[in-house]
């Protein structure tokens, strides 16, 4: 009797674990199903080459490029802040600071990632944009610059904590060898530790990029809702995620072509983040094996 009870429990636990697989499968099915119908109406070549995205207008264009460049711009701005700052923090905490400092600072840094993104959106729109306009007069009220800067601040702890793990994994003996030859901490970090931890740092960067690509509320609030093909960070643009929010807030009839655009945009987003996440998973696995 005990044996059957144990077996039933094990089956229940297995089913719970299989839920995670089911979630992935359902995401893929839902996105592809709607996307396939979408691509029976819109040519996939137009989708990737047309330079206009106007599904909600009378004269419809379904070129994803403007949304992609919008996403790219906010991500670029965010990474150009998060990468140098996050990496410096990781190096400082791991090689320079003492334990007490680290114990106090780390929860404070984690707080940066804990603030709800809708609040960061408010910061970008109401505080950062007016502040920047004092120095950049032609900065528009919505821009990839403000949204990207604030997103960069949010992403700092992702870069710093993952890079710190990577630096921490570098064997002590390597560092001691460098110190033993009279290197300063600066030389040790940049000539020995950082190169040895490079694949781990790359993982941190990839995951942070993936996080930035998928971020929604900051860009929906502060980057604008004007899909346009531009690399100018000072003008309003629209990202993939912001477009999905825009359509969700409107009254687009279900089963219409306009409704399906959010799934076509969604699957594009999913594919990008999926690839980035998998690359980082394998890289991380590889560098963990290296030091085991």
């Amino acid at each position, binding site marked *: 009797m005990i044996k059957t009870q144990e077996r039933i429990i094990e089956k229940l636990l297995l089913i719970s*674990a299989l839920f995670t697989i089911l979630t992935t499968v359902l995401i893929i099915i839902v996105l592809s199903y709607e996307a396939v119908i979408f691509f029976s109406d819109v040519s996939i070549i137009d989708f990737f080459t047309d330079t206009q995205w106007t599904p909600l207008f009378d004269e419809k264009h379904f070129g994803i490029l403007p949304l992609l460049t919008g996403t790219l711009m906010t991500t670029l701005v965010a990474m150009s802040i998060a990468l140098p700052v996050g990496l410096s923090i990781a190096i400082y905490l791991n090689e320079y600071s003492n334990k007490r400092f680290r114990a106090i600072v780390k929860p404070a840094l984690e707080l940066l990632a804990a603030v709800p993104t809708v*609040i960061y959106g408010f910061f970008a729109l109401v*505080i950062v944009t007016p502040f920047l306009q004092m120095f950049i007069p032609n900065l528009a009220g919505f821009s990839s610059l403000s949204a990207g800067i604030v997103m960069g601040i949010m992403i700092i702890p992702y870069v710093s904590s993952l890079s710190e793990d990577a630096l921490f994994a570098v064997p002590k003996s390597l560092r001691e060898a460098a110190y033993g030859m009279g290197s300063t901490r600066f030389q040790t970090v940049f000539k020995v530790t950082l190169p040895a931890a490079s694949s781990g740092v790359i993982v941190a960067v990839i995951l942070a990029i993936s996080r930035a690509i998928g971020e929604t509320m900051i860009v929906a609030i502060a980057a604008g809702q004007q899909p346009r093909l531009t690399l100018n960070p000072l003008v309003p643009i629209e990202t993939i995620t912001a477009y999905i929010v825009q359509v969700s807030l409107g009254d687009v009839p279900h089963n219409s072509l306009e409704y399906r655009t959010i799934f076509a945009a969604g699957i594009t987003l999913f594919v990008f983040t999926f690839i980035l996440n998998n690359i980082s998973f394998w890289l991380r696995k590889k560098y963990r094996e290296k030091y085991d």
Partner: protein
Amino acid sequence: MTNIQLNRAKDKMFATWGVVSTFFGIILLAVFIIFILYDGLPRLSWQFLVSLPSRKPENAGVYTAMMGTIWILGLTLLFALPLGIAAAVYLEEYIPKGKFATILEINISNLAGVPSIIYGLLGLQLFARTMKFGGNLLAGSFTLSLLILPIIIVATREAIRAVPSSIKDASFALGATKWQTIWLQVLPSAFGGIMTGLILALSRAVGEAAPLIVVGALAYVPFAPKSPMDEYSVLPIQIFNWISRPQHGFVVNAAAAIIILLVITFTMNAIAVFLRNKHQKKTN
């Protein structure tokens, strides 16, 4: 300057730069929060907490959004917690080594990286449309449950792994079955770690707006929800809604609502950090 002096100077400069970097984000966040407090604090009152939404900013309150947030959190907890713990126990204690284990491992790490808005699209099609829930609390909390499931699983697995194997040995040696050992020894010992992960997951859920907007939560709900089948709004969506209004009064409202949301998330994170420190001290 000699080479050694130059190297020393570089070293010193980087040490300074490190401190600057460390406090860069923290100080900016602090400045932002001071702005918010300046804008929103005068608006905060009991009246603001218990008022329904309104077209006039000075009459509007967060009551319906607060109630929606509480409902969503409660239901999400109800679905995600048992499922997450069960899945984690299976992965940590039962799963046979091999391909299946690797696939599950990769899958969970992938799910944790899927943008939250994608969960919204899944919820929209699966819960709101196929299961015909529409934009009700059930559809929203199912969606958020799937979103925080990977976080709960990862945290629970870590907590289970931290339970010393000597305790399991002792239980098995007394004739306990595997499940008895897990239920009576492993899970109680891992309780602190599981709670920490759970609170962090909920603090994530409380701030989510994007997936709920996609799945059909409303920006304007006249009444607080009374059952899981009701329509709802949540604090972040209410804030988003107020930010996008042109009148200055709504921006002030948004700032006041942000203070409430910040207090909730910071409290949750503080509890989680406190629990984690307490837990670490105990195991050391």
